[in-house]
């Protein structure tokens, strides 16, 4: 074989090796993170975590206030974000498929999907926390909904677009009004995809920290009224991890594991519910 062939074969081998190695390294690095979060987290887990509130340094305690606060805020967020996301998606897919306004909204929405989440926190601080003179769980939920609703809007738009036009035309020919077609025909067809969008939005906000830093703040105590600083898991982890106390670090590992587990299981459930549905990227 000539030198040229040898050279090409070796270059190919080199890059094959590189690609295989990077797949191995990349994936094992990410799995290593998961493994460490889980092994340290399980080591730090005890019944106290689910029965006690955040402790002062040196005492035993748990994260129940933060968990409850996070769950309440996430639910409120979804209550705000679902109608906006669904209706916005309906507008893009059903009323303004290729128009100027539709394209503009779609473009800006895609940017909001990746926009820095801390800016939503600052914005909410300015429009809610400052005028009301109080950090609150409500402000936290509003800030989180700015992250959640673009996800829902995007998937609703995508899923409704997949519904074939013949169905709409058939329903219209039978005399159904447009809104009736949307809510009974199109939604039923696109149901699994839209549910995926809701779950992905939920998974996205569960671990968001930056928008909560100056909206919900955090709270060491039990607080289910969301009018004041509201405890939440991500910011609690941040504060525990930044502290100098080893027992707080342990608790933070447990918290990190709980969040990772929650996000992973939501994503896996989504995947099982709807095989081949849209992913959470873009």
């Amino acid at each position, binding site marked *: 074989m000539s030198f040229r062939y040898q050279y090409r074969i070796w270059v190919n081998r080199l890059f094959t090796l590189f690609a295989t190695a990077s*797949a191995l390294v990349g994936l094992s690095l990410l799995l290593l993170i998961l493994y460490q979060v889980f092994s340290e987290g399980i080591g730090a887990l005890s019944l106290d975590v689910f029965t006690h509130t955040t402790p002062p340094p040196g005492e035993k305690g748990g994260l129940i206030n933060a968990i409850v606060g996070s769950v309440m805020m996430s639910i409120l967020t979804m209550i705000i974000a679902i109608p906006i996301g669904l209706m916005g998606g309906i507008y893009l897919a059903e009323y303004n498929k290729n128009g100027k306004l539709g394209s503009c909204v779609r473009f800006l929405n895609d940017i909001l999907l990746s926009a*820095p989440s801390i800016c939503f926190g600052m914005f909410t601080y300015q429009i809610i926390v400052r005028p009301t003179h109080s950090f609150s769980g409500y402000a936290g939920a509003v800030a989180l909904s700015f992250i959640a609703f673009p996800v829902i809007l995007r998937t609703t738009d995508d899923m409704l677009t997949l519904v074939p036009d013949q169905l709409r035309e058939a329903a219209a020919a039978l005399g159904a009004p447009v809104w009736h077609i949307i809510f009974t025909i199109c939604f039923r067809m696109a149901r699994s995809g839209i549910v995926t969008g809701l779950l992905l939005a939920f998974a996205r906000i569960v671990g968001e920290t930056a928008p909560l830093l100056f909206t919900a703040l955090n709270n060491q105590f039990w607080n289910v009224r969301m009018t004041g600083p509201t405890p939440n898991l991500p910011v609690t982890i941040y504060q525990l991890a930044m502290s100098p106390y080893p027992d707080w670090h342990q608790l933070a590992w447990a918290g990190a594991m709980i969040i990772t587990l929650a996000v992973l299981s939501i994503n896996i459930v989504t995947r099982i519910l709807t095989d081949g549905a849209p992913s959470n990227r873009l």
Partner: protein
Amino acid sequence: MNNLIKNLSLFCAALVIVLVLAILFVLTRAAWPTFHTFGFSFFVTNIWNPVTNQYGALSAIYGTVVTSFLALILALPIGFGIAFYLVELAPPLVVKPLRIAIELLAGIPSIVFGFWGLFVLVPVFQDYIQPFLIRHSEGLPVLGKLFAGPGFGVGLLSAGCVLAIMVLPFIAAFLTDVFKTVSPALKESAYALGATRWEVMRSVVAPSTIGPIMGGVMLAFGRALGETMAVTFVIGNAHRLSPSLLAPGTTISASIANEFNEATNDLHTSSLLALGLTLFAVSFVVLACGKASILLLERRRNA
């Protein structure tokens, strides 16, 4: 009822535009005292002193750009390798589980990465990697400056690495999707001419998808710019400008996360809001360019 639903949905869609404009307006108004006091020099001075009430954004902007670039430089080759492996090399049995794993990892919240970085990566960096870099780059012309000691563990390099790990699943999944859009006929004709797998990748797949690839790289860059929690844990949070990658620094988002609640006076708060506005505007432009280049190419393909 018909009009009600139509108008309601129009209202919700318009909220997207209103939100973007409102963020720009509210942040600009809140940041106005800073721009009024410091003018354009806010962006080019390297002072951040709440005591004397002097603020300049240069160190934060520098840290943001450096960490994001580092993240891309580290993650792009590995992400490309993963995508190459998934599209051309992997046995069919491996492809699906690997893809699922990557997509699941892309969803893990950034605070987990930052937290892991602080407790696992930083000690390793401090004990092994940074002393190694300092020892072996000493006296070298450029590297000597880049890796000048002492190594604290936390710093620009650690932040760049954590960011790289975070954007890796995004880049890998994106590139895989893009490479898959290349028509099999095109690839098979290259194989039929005797091209090796790497040659098909380099001369057929990559050139025909270069537009979306650039777009995706910009999207990843935009995300890295605005990332807060993964960076705040490991950057060291020092407002200073140092040519060494091992030195502690700060980014725009890390400064905001650290100082916003403890801002001492109105000008301090306003300066942090000015930082936030800068971040929002810059990542908006980067993301818009990335998105636009992907859209343009899709349109050309459909036409």
